[in-house]
Each structure stands twice: as structure tokens, then as C-alpha cells.
């Protein structure tokens, strides 16, 4: 125990190099992991924000952002299926937004019925007067620079229809590279020029006493022309579409996987090198009669001290980096388990690497200890 600390204290420069190596790895793994986790979360955030059980989409729709129209009467047909207790509608399409200063900007327009759930970004009756509700619009704080409204409410145009920007919200920042605007379903359908027969997403709430999958089967039989997915299925499909089928998503996935592997390799390499440095001395201990356990414990303690210090430093560096990144990449997200998992994995890799590197010292090679 004392030896472990003394080795660290005595070779401070090497300790620092080891700690920096580990902290870089932890930083890399947490940062890249946050990009991937945030991306996956953002890819299904609208679906997750609804609290309905079943989504009906046009056949083959891959992600919320790329919907297609379906027949609006599917909603009435679905409502008649036993177990369906409530229905709602949502849509999303690109539109042209005209700022108060006259400039134009392409935006993603999201429309939804106000019963979709309290997390879903949609103007609520309580927040706005009945008369205004018709053309009330919300935007996300991260898109403020592109929306360019000086004060709220602001009169703007969407697809040449009059509209009113009423509120700023948080948590639904730009993921498509264009700002998003949120409004009621009725409103969005009007801006997007939906006819009375057009719909896009039909959401269904299933009664507590019914099984969601039974209702889903039943709906599939009655509505063979459309896709009927549970919320989790659609969310998963959306995430997989974004992360695997789009270039941006695959790049983020690849970067995260590489970051993870590189992180683990850096940790192992750093610790391995650090242990190998003293391998002669571990061989001496063994020759003096120390048990494998005795030597392994010293090596392990020394590595874990390095790993713990490196992890703490890495996490300390990640906090400001994440805060800064969030201003550029609003959807980046670090769940609590990500740094915990990365640190635990780093400690594990440290232990493995140090024990692996010391294995050769545990069987003392006499040529080694007697060498001049």
C-alpha cells in the first residue's frame, strides 16, 4: 500500500502522464457517448413526448420528421375499435417562415392536438386566449437567432398565412439544421394546405383494461393500408432510421463506437505502460517471497489510484465542455448513467491491464532478477 503511493509520489511526472491519458479517455468516451445518446433521444423526442399508446402512420414512414399523408378517416375507423378511448393528431412538414423583418427561412412545422400530452410542444389553451389559439406559434430558445423576433407576440407568416409567435420553449432545439415551430394541429394543417381528407399521424390511447398489443393487432386487420405501431416501436424505428440510415447518424454512431474503443485502448495502454515501468521491482518482490496476491494488490492499488484520479479529471473537464457544446449542439445529452458507466469501465480496464502487465512478473524469471 505504501509502495503504491510511494511509486506514484516518486514518479510524479509519469503519474501525471498516466492520469492525463486516463482523463483524456474518459473525456472522449463521455463526450462521444453524450453525442450518441443525445442524438438517439432527439430522434424520437416527439414520439416520446406524446403519452398515447399507439401511432398510426402512412405505410413505410421511418421517422417522425419524414411523415407522409394518410386518409383522415382512418381516425374515425380507429376510434371505433374496442379499447381505443381517445384519439389525437400530429403532423410535421417543412414550411416557409417569413420573419418580421421580411426575410424568409425554411422551418420544420410541427402541429399537434393539445391532448397529446403535457410534454408535447403545443400551445395549450390555458396559456393563450381562445381567439389567438388559432394562429399561435411556439419556438425553441436555441433557434432564437434564426427566428429573429424582437418581442413577443410577433406577427409573422408561415406559407403565406398570418401567424403569431407567442412563446419560447426549451428542449426541442434544432436537430434538422432548421428551426422548428410548433402550433396546433388545426393550424398546421391549414398552413400546410391539408385537405379535409388528409392526415399524417393518428395517435390512440388504449383503455387501461385493454392490452395494447391486442388493440394493435385488431387495428392492423381493420386498417391494412397504414402502419400501426406502439409508441415504443415507432420511437425505436425513428431512432434506428436516424442513427443507421442517415449519414449524420452513422457518423455519430461510428464516432461514438470509435471513441469508446479508443478510450478503452488508451486506458489500457497507459496503465499497462505505467505498470511495465516497475515490472523489475515486482519481480524482485516475488523473488523476496511475496505472494502473487501481495504483488497484484500493489499493482492494482497503484493503477486504481491513477484511474480514479484520471476519471475525476476527465469528468471535471467534461462538465464545461458539455456546457459549451450545448450552446452549439442543443440536443447533446448526458444521462447520469453514462459517466458512471464509462468510469466503471475505465476502472475495470485499468485493473485488467495492470494485472495482465504484471502477470509476467508474477512468475519470476531468474535471469531477470539476477541480471546486473
Amino acid at each position, binding site marked *: 500500500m*505504501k*509502495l503504491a503511493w*510511494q*511509486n506514484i*509520489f*516518486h*514518479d510524479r511526472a509519469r503519474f501525471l502522464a498516466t492520469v492525463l491519458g486516463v482523463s483524456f479517455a474518459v473525456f472522449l468516451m463521455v463526450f462521444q457517448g453524450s453525442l450518441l445518446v443525445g442524438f438517439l433521444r432527439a430522434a424520437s423526442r416527439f414520439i416520446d413526448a406524446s403519452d398515447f399508446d399507439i401511432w398510426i402512420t402512412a405505410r413505410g414512414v421511418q421517422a417522425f420528421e419524414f411523415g407522409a399523408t394518410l386518409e383522415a378517416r382512418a381516425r374515425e375507423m380507429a376510434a371505433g375499435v374496442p379499447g381505443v378511448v381517445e384519439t389525437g393528431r400530429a403532423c410535421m412538414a417543412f414550411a416557409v417562415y417569413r420573419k418580421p423583418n421580411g426575410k424568409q427561412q425554411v422551418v420544420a412545422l410541427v402541429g399537434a392536438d393539445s391532448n397529446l400530452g403535457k410534454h408535447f410542444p403545443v400551445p395549450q389553451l390555458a396559456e393563450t386566449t381562445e381567439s389567438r389559439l388559432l394562429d399561435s406559434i411556439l419556438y425553441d430558445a436555441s433557434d432564437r437567432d434564426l427566428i429573429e423576433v424582437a418581442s413577443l407576440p410577433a406577427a409573422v407568416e408561415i406559407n403565406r398565412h398570418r401567424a403569431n409567435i407567442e412563446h419560447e420553449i426549451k428542449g426541442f432545439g434544432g436537430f434538422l439544421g432548421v428551426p422548428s415551430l410548433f402550433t396546433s394541429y388545426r393550424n398546421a394543417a391549414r398552413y400546410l394546405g391539408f385537405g379535409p381528407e388528409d392526415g399524417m399521424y393518428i395517435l390512440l390511447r388504449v383503455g387501461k383494461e385493454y392490452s395494447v398489443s391486442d388493440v394493435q393487432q385488431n387495428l392492423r386487420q381493420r386498417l391494412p393500408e397504414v402502419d400501426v405501431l406502439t409508441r415504443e416501436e415507432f420511437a425505436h424505428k425513428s431512432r434506428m432510421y436516424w442513427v443507421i440510415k442517415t449519414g449524420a447518424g452513422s457518423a455519430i454512431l461510428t464516432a461514438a463506437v470509435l471513441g469508446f474503443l479508443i478510450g478503452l485502448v488508451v486506458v489500457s495502454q497507459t496503465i499497462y505502460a505505467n505498470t511495465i515501468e516497475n515490472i*523489475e*521491482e515486482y519481480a*524482485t*518482490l*516475488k*523473488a*523476496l*517471497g*511475496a*505472494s*502473487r496476491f*501481495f504483488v497484484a494488490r500493489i499493482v492494482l492499488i497503484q493503477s486504481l489510484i491513477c484511474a480514479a484520479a484520471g476519471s475525476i479529471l476527465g469528468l471535471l473537464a467534461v462538465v464545461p465542455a458539455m456546457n459549451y457544446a450545448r450552446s452549439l449542439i442543443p440536443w447533446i445529452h448526458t444521462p447520469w448513467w453514462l459517466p458512471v458507466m464509462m468510469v466503471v469501465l475505465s476502472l475495470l480496464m485499468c485493473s485488467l491491464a495492470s494485472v495482465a502487465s504484471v502477470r509476467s512478473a508474477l*512468475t*519470476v524469471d*531468474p*535471469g531477470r*532478477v*539476477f*541480471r*546486473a
Partner: protein
Amino acid sequence: MPDQFLAVEDARISFGKGSARVRALRGVSVTFERGTLSLVMGPSGSGKTTLLSLLGCLLSPDEGIVFVDGVAVNELSVSEKTVLRRQKISFVFQAFRLLHSLSAIDNVALGLEIREGKRADNMVRARELLLQFGLRGKLNHDPNELSPGEKQRVAIARALAGDPPILLADEPTASLDAEAGRNICQILRSQVDQNGRTVVVVSHDPRWKEFADRMITLSDGQIKQEEQGNKA
């Protein structure tokens, strides 16, 4: 029946395979009597270090038997050999092999910890051992602050921590100047005379002859000559 306190019987060992095969020992039988200092000599590559490694349970012979404290070591498992080494055998190396990050006293205390476990009085006993070898002013010095002779005395103090009956030294004076070397010879001799330890020294250094009870000369993996030392 000779005393099988420390002995090898018809030991053979080779390294490598095929044409690179080196037969380091080719049937060596030798007994080291309790309470004696034996000197092993011979040209480079004659198998001196290999013989010492067998005696120290660091290597096992391909054929033949090694006895330590009357026990045939061949039959022991690796961890049993470690235990035997911990209880009975200590080494002194040409390169000292002190732990570079520990002070002189911590090096000796670690030797005590390995042999006897963590004990409250380890530091006191480590200090006593170092004082015994005239290292009073050097207790808290790091190895790199010590002269070669001082390093070897610290290493001997560490080897004697835990009071092992057998001391195996490979070229203990080769890295030292004449005076320091002589000092080490005297120290190891006194371990025999005063503490009854059994010491085996491998060395080219002719100075050892006057301190040895017996001299064994190896050549090409075999014992070429055995003679009485000046002390006998």
C-alpha cells in the same frame, strides 16, 4: 547420508529448443553444509546463476532433486515454493534491486512485511538492521542518494529481514569498489560466524577465497573442482 539442508542431486536443466538449446547444468550434485560460506566460481555461462536459481526455488530442474531445509523442492507447487522461499531463503543481487521509490528504511520494512506480515514494530526492527550495518545517517535516504556500497548494505539488511537461514548472493561485490567489496565480504562472513546462516556466494572475485569455507568451480554446466577455502 549427507546433511540435505541445502543441496542439489544430479541436477540437469536446459534452455531453449533445437539448435538453440543450451544445457546450462549437466548433472550437478553438491551439498552446502549448514553454517558455512561456499563460493561458486567459474567462467561466464558455466551455470553459476542457474545453480543459484535452483537453490532459491526460482527454477526447477529438468531432472534431479533440489533440497532446501531437508525438503525435496521438486514436489512442491509454485505457491508452496514461494512460501518456502519466504521462510528460508534470501537473495543478494549484483544490481542491489532496491525499490527506487522507497527510502532505505522502507525497503527493509517491506522485506519484513513480506516475510512476517504487517507488524507495528516493523519500522523499529528495520532501523535496528540498518544501524547494524552502519547506515545510521542514511535511514531516510532514497536508494539513488546512496553509494553502491551503502546500497548493497541496505539490500543485505533487507535480505536479513525476517531472519532467513539461507542467503544466496550472485556477484554481490561486482558493482563495488575494493573497499566496499571487502566490507560486504566481512558482513556476509559474519552472518555465518555469528548467526549460523548458510551462505552461497557466486563470484569471480578472488577476494572471496579468504572468506569461504569451500570453493566450487563450475565449467560448462558441470562441477570441475571442489576445494577447501581459507576459512575451513
